[in-house]
C-alpha cells in the first residue's frame, strides 16, 4: 500500500506514557534547558498503596536560575500525583514536519507515540520558596496593563493645518508638470491602451487616464473605437477591449487585427 502522508504510523501504539501537567513556572524553567537534564524522579513503591509515590527534584542550578519570567524562586521538590486515565482513552500522536516548514500540519508525518497510562499532576511540595514565588506572581498579575502617563510636552506634530501642506505641494507640482494633458497620437494612445489591456481585462476610466496621461474626452474617443463600456455586473463601469481586439488575455496588437 502506498504510504500516504496522512497515514498515522501506529508502531508505537502500545507504548505507555505519562501525561504530566506541569505549572507554568516549572515548564518555563524546563524550556530554558537545551536538551538536557532537568531533574530527577524518585519513585517509591509502597506495598500498601496502589500507586507509587513519585517525587521530582529540580536540578539545583535550574531552581536558582532566573529566567526572567518571574519564576526564579521555584521550589525544589514536587510531588507527582498519579491517577489513571479514569476511563478516558488517551493517546499521544506527533507531527514531524520538514526542516524548512516547521509546524505545518499538512506536511507533517504523523505517528502515534503511545497511549497514556497515567495522568500525572505536578504539585509543589510546600515551603517558603513556593510562597515567595506565588507572591511574585500575584504582584505581577496585579499590575494594570494600561497605565496613564503624564506628558510633559504637548504634542506638536499634528496641528490641524489650514490647508494641507503636503497636498498643496502635490497639487502645485501636478499642475506644473502635467498642465493640461496633451493629446498624443491616436496610434500611440492605442498602443498604450493595448499594452495596458494585456495586463488586465477591465479598466476603470480613471485608471486609464492615469496610465495614458491623456485628457479624458480624447481618451474616451480613442477608447470608443477599440473598447466597450461594461455596465453590468460583475465589473461595474469598466472598459474592456472589444472582442475582435481581444486575444487570449485581452490584448493584442491592433495593427495585426484591424
Amino acid at each position, binding site marked *: 500500500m502506498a504510504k500516504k502522508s496522512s497515514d*498515522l504510523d501506529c508502531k508505537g501504539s502500545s507504548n505507555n*506514557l505519562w501525561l504530566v501537567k506541569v*505549572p507554568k513556572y516549572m515548564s518555563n524553567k524546563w524550556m530554558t534547558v537545551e536538551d538536557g537534564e532537568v531533574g530527577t524522579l524518585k*519513585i517509591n513503591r509502597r506495598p500498601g498503596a496502589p500507586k507509587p509515590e513519585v517525587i521530582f527534584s529540580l536540578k539545583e542550578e535550574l531552581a536558582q536560575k532566573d529566567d526572567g519570567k518571574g519564576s526564579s524562586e521555584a521550589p525544589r521538590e514536587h510531588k507527582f500525583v498519579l491517577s489513571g486515565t479514569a*476511563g478516558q482513552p488517551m493517546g499521544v500522536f506527533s507531527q514531524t514536519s520538514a526542516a524548512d516548514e*516547521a509546524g505545518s500540519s499538512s506536511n507533517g508525518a504523523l505517528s502515534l507515540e503511545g497511549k497514556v497510562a497515567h495522568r500525572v499532576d505536578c504539585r509543589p511540595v510546600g515551603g517558603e520558596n513556593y510562597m515567595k514565588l506565588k507572591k511574585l506572581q500575584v504582584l505581577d498579575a496585579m499590575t494594570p496593563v494600561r497605565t496613564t502617563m503624564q506628558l510633559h510636552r504637548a504634542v506638536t506634530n499634528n496641528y490641524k493645518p489650514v490647508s494641507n501642506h503636503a497636498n498643496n505641494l502635490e497639487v502645485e507640482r501636478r499642475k506644473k508638470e502635467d498642465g493640461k494633458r496633451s493629446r498624443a497620437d491616436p496610434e500611440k494612445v492605442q498602443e498604450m491602451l493595448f499594452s495596458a489591456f494585456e495586463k*488586465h481585462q477591465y479598466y476603470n476610466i480613471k485608471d486609464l487616464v492615469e496610465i495614458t496621461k491623456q485628457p479624458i474626452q480624447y481618451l474616451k474617443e480613442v477608447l470608443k473605437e477599440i473598447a466597450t463600456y461594461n455596465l453590468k455586473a460583475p465589473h461595474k463601469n469598466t472598459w474592456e477591449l472589444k472582442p475582435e481586439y481581444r486575444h487570449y488575455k485581452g490584448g493584442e496588437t491592433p495593427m495585426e487585427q484591424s
Partner: protein
Amino acid sequence: MVFPFFFQSQPSGSGGLQGGLQGPEEFTVKIQKNPLKKYNVMRFAANSKVDMSAWKEANMERETSTMDIYKDETMPEYGEGSEYGRKWREQARQKKYGINKTKLKLEDQPWLLKVGGKGGKRFVGRKEGGINEASSYFVFRQTGNKTFEACPVESWYNFTPQIKYKYLNEEEAEAEFEKRHKVLNYFNIMMKKRLENKDEAETEGETEKNVSARDDLKVREGDESDSDLGGFSDDSDNEAEGKKEKAKTAKKKKDTKGQKKKKKKQKGSDDEALEDSDEGDYDGREVDYMSDEDESASEEEVDKSKVDGTYLKGVDQEMEMSSSEEEEEGEGEKEGEAAEGEKTTEDKPAKKEESDSSSSEDSDVDLESSALFMQDKKEGKLKGKQGRSKKSGKAGGKTGSKGTSRSGSSSSSRASTPAPDGGIGSTLAAAAKKLEQQKGTKRAAEGDSPLPKKARHSRSHDGSGSGTPTSELGLTEESVRRYLMRKPMTAKDLLKKFPTGKTGLNRDQTVAKVTEILKKLNPEKKTINGKIHLWLKS
C-alpha cells in the same frame, strides 16, 4: 521501548527486577526539545472503548471540507478577467467598513481519523482551547533504564465518533418542539401502539394487576379530578370487566385494541363526556396530513370504536370495524342497526351539532388537541362505564359501536363510522339500548360538554325508567363483589363507585344498600395505610 513494571502501578514492592524492598528508584528526567516534532494529545470519549494498541492501520487528515466557505472569491490578479486596482479597492473598502475577515488556519481545523481502513471507525478530533494558558503538559516516556524523556505537548484534540445520521440544528429543533402539542404525532402513536401490542401479546389473560400496570403507560384518567369513576380503582375495575369480555374475542381484540387505543388517543375529545372543553378551544390546532374522508378517517373511526369498546368487543363490533369506512351519515345507519334508540336520537342532535360546529379541521383539531392525556381520560371513563355495567360482551360491543359512532360524528370530516352491519346491529338492538342507557351518562359526547350532558341526562332517565335495576344501576351485589374481589377497597371507595344520581338513589339509600350487600358478602377486613380495606378473597 522498555515497559517498566511500575507503569502498571501495582503495589509490587520493588517488583520483578530486584528482590526485596528497596529505596526509591531514581530516574533522570530529560527534556526533549525538537522544534520539528510536535506532540499532541488525543482524547476519546470517557465511555468509549478505544484500544489504541489494537490499531493496525490508521489514517488521519485535516478536515478541509468546511474551509471553502471562507475562501475568498478571488478574481484573477492579472490577465483575463482581472481588473486594474481591484485588490486595493477591495482592501480599502473592507477597511472602510471595518470588515474583518479571519483567515482560516489549517492548524485549527479538526482531524479526521479513520481507523482500520475503509470499513473501520471514523473519528473527528476537535481542538481543545486553553490548555496551554495556565499550565503545560508534558509527555513522559521512559527511555533506557533510568531515564525519562519529557516532551512538551503542543495541542489537545478531543476525538468523537463521526456522526453519519442527520440531525436538526437549533432552529429546526426549536420549531419542532413548538409543534409537538399542535400537530398529531403519528410516530408517537405508532410507538405506543407497538408497546401496547407487545403488552397485549404478553398478557393476554393477565391479571388485574398487569392490566393496571399496562395502563400506566398512558396518562390515567384517574389523574383528573372530575372523573366520576372515582379514579384509579375504577379503571382497574373496568379493565377487569373489560378483560372478561375481551377474552371472548381475544384475537380480534388484540389486533384492534392497539388500534383502538391509538384511535382513542386521536379522538380523545370524542370520548370526553365530562371534559369541559369549550367550543373554540382547539380551533387553532393543526393537523398532520390532512386527508379528506378516506381510509384514515375510516380507520380512525374503526379504531375509535375499538377504543371505546376497550375490552368489550363484541362480534358485532368486529364486524362493524371490518367494514368501516363510513361518514357520519354512515353513523346514522349504524345507529339504526345498533338500535341505539334514544341514544341515537340523542346522538344525532349531538352529532349534528358536532358536525356543524366542528369542521373537518375542528374535528381533526379535536383529535389532536386532545393529547394522549385526554384520550386516556376518555378511555378511562369508558372503561369505568363499562365496568359498571354488567353487560355481556355484546353489549359492550354495542357500547363500543356507540362510542364509535359518536367519535365518528365528532370528527366529521375524517372519521367515518364503521359500516354498520345492519343484521347484527338489529339483533343486538335491545342489548345495545340497555347498554347505551347505562353508559349514557358516562359516554363522552363528541366534544361539546353541554350536549353530552344533555344526552347523559336523557339517557339516565331512560335508564332508570326502562332498565332493570340490576343491570343498569350497577349497585348490585354482583358489582360490589366484583369490585371487592379485584382489589381491596375502603368503604368510601366502594361508595364512590356508585355515585348518586346515576343509580337514582340518594346518598343514604346508596349507603344503606351497600351496607346490606356488604353484610351479605362479608368481606375480609385488611388494614392498609391505616385504613380499613374490604376485600373478598375469591
